């Protein structure tokens, strides 16, 4: 894919309307794309040919100790400081309520001194109970997948590779259970690195952390095997190592983020939709590359197996839809081939439609990759008090009619409430009519608040927002959201977040797809396991062409 586009060559179709895109069911069908944050990071690292060093490796024979990995990137040095500690099996849990983990990590801004390492060794294993400084950019922890970790140690020590089925079915040696950033527990605020161009895209420090943790997990398993059998142990084969990503259990903690950052959400979506519109308008296609990607997606779907009944049904349907959609290649000879494929995909389910979007983007990197620079946002716009109440009413009619559809007098429409748990200060979802605490509800009931505002606006048709809010200060937040929505169409998820039909898993999949996660493995309607960086380049593979790892498949 070496095509280059002059600016005036780039056309685009209309964007998909927000009423179509911003529905829970659709965003809950998203797939990772080349605009996902992990992909952006890898492209930039590859472009710089960043070189990873391991200045500290102090591990005992059982793999307990500490390590430091340092990488030069964008004119700065970043270091992962890793601590591996012994953990009794009965204390191993992926739950956020855990108090001990197999490994803990910080991403350090610079090259740490012995004192920095020591200070973090005192704190990182305690995670939320520790305290950090603004030299630390992220804080994370991970547990081993004991089954595959121990098996891999035994296999490598015995001169063999781990069983391929196990590598394919599990796909990681360690699972992270949290990656904290932006000032949590005293670590650096995002504002510290936001102005660094290579860190301006969302979640880059977190993505870098996880990529380095993956390297650590590979090194650790090889180290323990080597210690077990110094003479005959072998290293992981490249293809196996590459398929071993990092697992993750993701719960409700992620969901409110999308509601609380409307402009950021808009920007992610706007870039994705703009990219799609560009690709639909192009007449260019590389049939060879495209067919290779279609085949890869087909293989990936065959390797995507989960226990969840509903997701299994969706995967089976997707495999069938994808097969029918790509039964022939006639679409490739149309005047606007990608538009033709996109139109054809709309006859199938949402998973198939969104996989088609991801395919279209993947095959057209030169046309869209530059858009990845537009996914961040500066300060969220604040209230415009000069606007009139009639303008707010018009905004509701034009942009928030979806919010007026729910009947909030029905208990089904107010069945749930979001709250922050006293135990771990994490977002949770409660059953309003069967669980206590609804009076402490977090304000994620956007549709209901818009209805309440619309109701109170009736009596004040011709006044300024400023004057209206002096009487109704409770509507300040919602008024601001509506003003944002008028300018940023993808800023709101256009569904009722407290309905009995609301499935948080849809929000999680949306956000995780923007991270670049794959193999969504829902364990309930409110948490999922995923893999990160599966198939991604290893640290010694950064270079031209390194970023070709969309929907990886295990090819022994």
């Amino acid at each position, binding site marked *: 894919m070496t095509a280059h586009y002059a600016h005036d060559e780039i056309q685009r179709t209309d964007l998909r309307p927000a009423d179509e895109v911003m529905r829970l069911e659709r965003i809950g069908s998203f797939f990772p794309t080349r605009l996902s944050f992990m992909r952006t990071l890898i492209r930039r690292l590859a472009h710089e040919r960043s070189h990873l060093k391991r200045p500290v490796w102090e591990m005992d024979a059982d793999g307990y100790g500490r390590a430091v990995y340092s990488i030069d990137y964008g004119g700065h040095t970043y270091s992962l400081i890793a601590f591996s500690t012994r953990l009794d099996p009965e204390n191993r849990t992926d739950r956020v309520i855990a108090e001990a983990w197999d490994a803990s990590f910080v991403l350090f801004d610079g090259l740490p001194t012995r004192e920095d390492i020591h200070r973090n060794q005192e704190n990182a294993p305690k995670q939320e109970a520790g305290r950090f400084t603004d030299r630390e950019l992220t804080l994370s922890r991970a547990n081993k997948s004991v089954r595959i970790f121990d098996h891999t140690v035994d296999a490598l020590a015995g001169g063999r590779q781990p069983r391929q089925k196990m590598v394919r079915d599990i796909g990681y040696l360690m699972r992270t259970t949290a990656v904290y950033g932006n000032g949590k527990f005293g670590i650096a605020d995002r504002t510290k690195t936001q102005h660094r161009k290579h860190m301006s895209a969302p979640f880059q420090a977190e993505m870098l952390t996880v990529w380095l943790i993956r390297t650590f997990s590979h090194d650790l398993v090889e180290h323990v095997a080597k210690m077990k059998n110094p003479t005959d142990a072998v290293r992981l084969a490249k293809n196996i190592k590459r398929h071993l990503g990092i697992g993750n259990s993701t719960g409700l903690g992620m969901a409110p983020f999308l509601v609380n950052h409307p402009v950021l959400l808009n920007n992610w979506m706007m870039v994705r939709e703009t990219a799609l519109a560009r690709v639909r308008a192009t007449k260019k296609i590389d049939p060879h590359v495209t067919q290779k990607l279609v085949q890869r997606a087909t293989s990936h779907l065959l390797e995507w197996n989960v226990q969840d009944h509903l997701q299994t049904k969706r995967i089976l349907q997707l495999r069938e839809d994808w097969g029918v959609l790509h039964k022939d290649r006639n679409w490739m000879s149309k005047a606007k081939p990608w538009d033709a494929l996109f139109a054809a995909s709309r006859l199938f389910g949402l998973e198939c439609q969104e996989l088609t979007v991801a395919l279209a983007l993947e095959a057209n990197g030169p046309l869209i990759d530059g858009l990845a620079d537009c996914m961040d946002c500066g300060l969220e716009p*604040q*209230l415009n008090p000069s606007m009139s109440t009639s303008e707010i009413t018009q905004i509701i009619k034009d942009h928030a009619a979806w919010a007026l559809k729910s009947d909030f007098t029905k208990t089904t429409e107010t069945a749930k409430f979001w709250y922050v748990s006293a135990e771990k200060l994490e977002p949770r979802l409660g059953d309003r009519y069967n669980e206590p605490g609804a009076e*402490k509800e977090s304000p994620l009931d956007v549709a209901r608040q818009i209805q309440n505002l619309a109701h109170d606006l009736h009596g004040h048709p011709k006044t300024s927002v400023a004057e209206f809010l002096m009487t109704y200060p409770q509507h300040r937040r919602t008024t601001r959201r509506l003003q944002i929505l008028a300018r940023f169409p993808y800023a709101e998820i256009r569904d009722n977040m407290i309905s009995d039909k609301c499935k948080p898993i849809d929000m999680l999949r949306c956000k995780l797809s923007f991270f670049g996660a794959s193999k969504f493995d829902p364990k309930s309607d409110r948490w999922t396991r995923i893999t990160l960086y599966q198939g991604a380049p290893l640290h010694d593979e950064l270079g031209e062409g390194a970023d070709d790892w969309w929907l990886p498949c295990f090819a022994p």
Partner: protein
Amino acid sequence: MMRSQNEIVSMATKAARGAGHLSSLAEDMGRATLWLCENGFDGVGALIEEIRSNNGPVEYQTGEDGITLSGGSAACLAVCAMDGLAAGISQSAILKNTENPLMLLGVCAIMSLDLQTGVKLGDWAKLGHGELVALSENPPTSDCTFRLLTKTKPVMIESDIRQIDIADHRWSVLETLAARTYVPATAESRTKGAGAGLTDND
């Protein structure tokens, strides 16, 4: 203990909510607290004083002298005054509550940044685009008249972000108030949360 910006804003916002302030106002109070701390004022002290103060409805009158605002907390009055001035309801706004001048200053500072304007708080303070331009030694003791300043130049804020030391006993007060927004996890929540229901040693 040293606290990050995000910790201060989050905790201050939650504390204000826990004390019964509206979510939108609590967010402004959180940001104002950080601004005060960053500018060398006792932001947490101002917040604690604020959340213990009158949280009733704002009353306002429009007369020849401009808008007169009374009732409500200092933060709420400051927000209403800045909104009203920015909307052109009048050229000046008289605030009847000046019991917590620091919070007035903090809220006006963040709103002058949001509204990209300057503001004069009586003879006490001048703010421009989120920056303190002038401050006299004597805060207002009775009514305070706000006026927008049209000639304040925008200031490029070159923030050299550093963490801020907040006394632990002060932080504890905020934590106690914030805890009022938390809900004890139920058995239902535990059985449905991330990582639940699986063998973690797999």
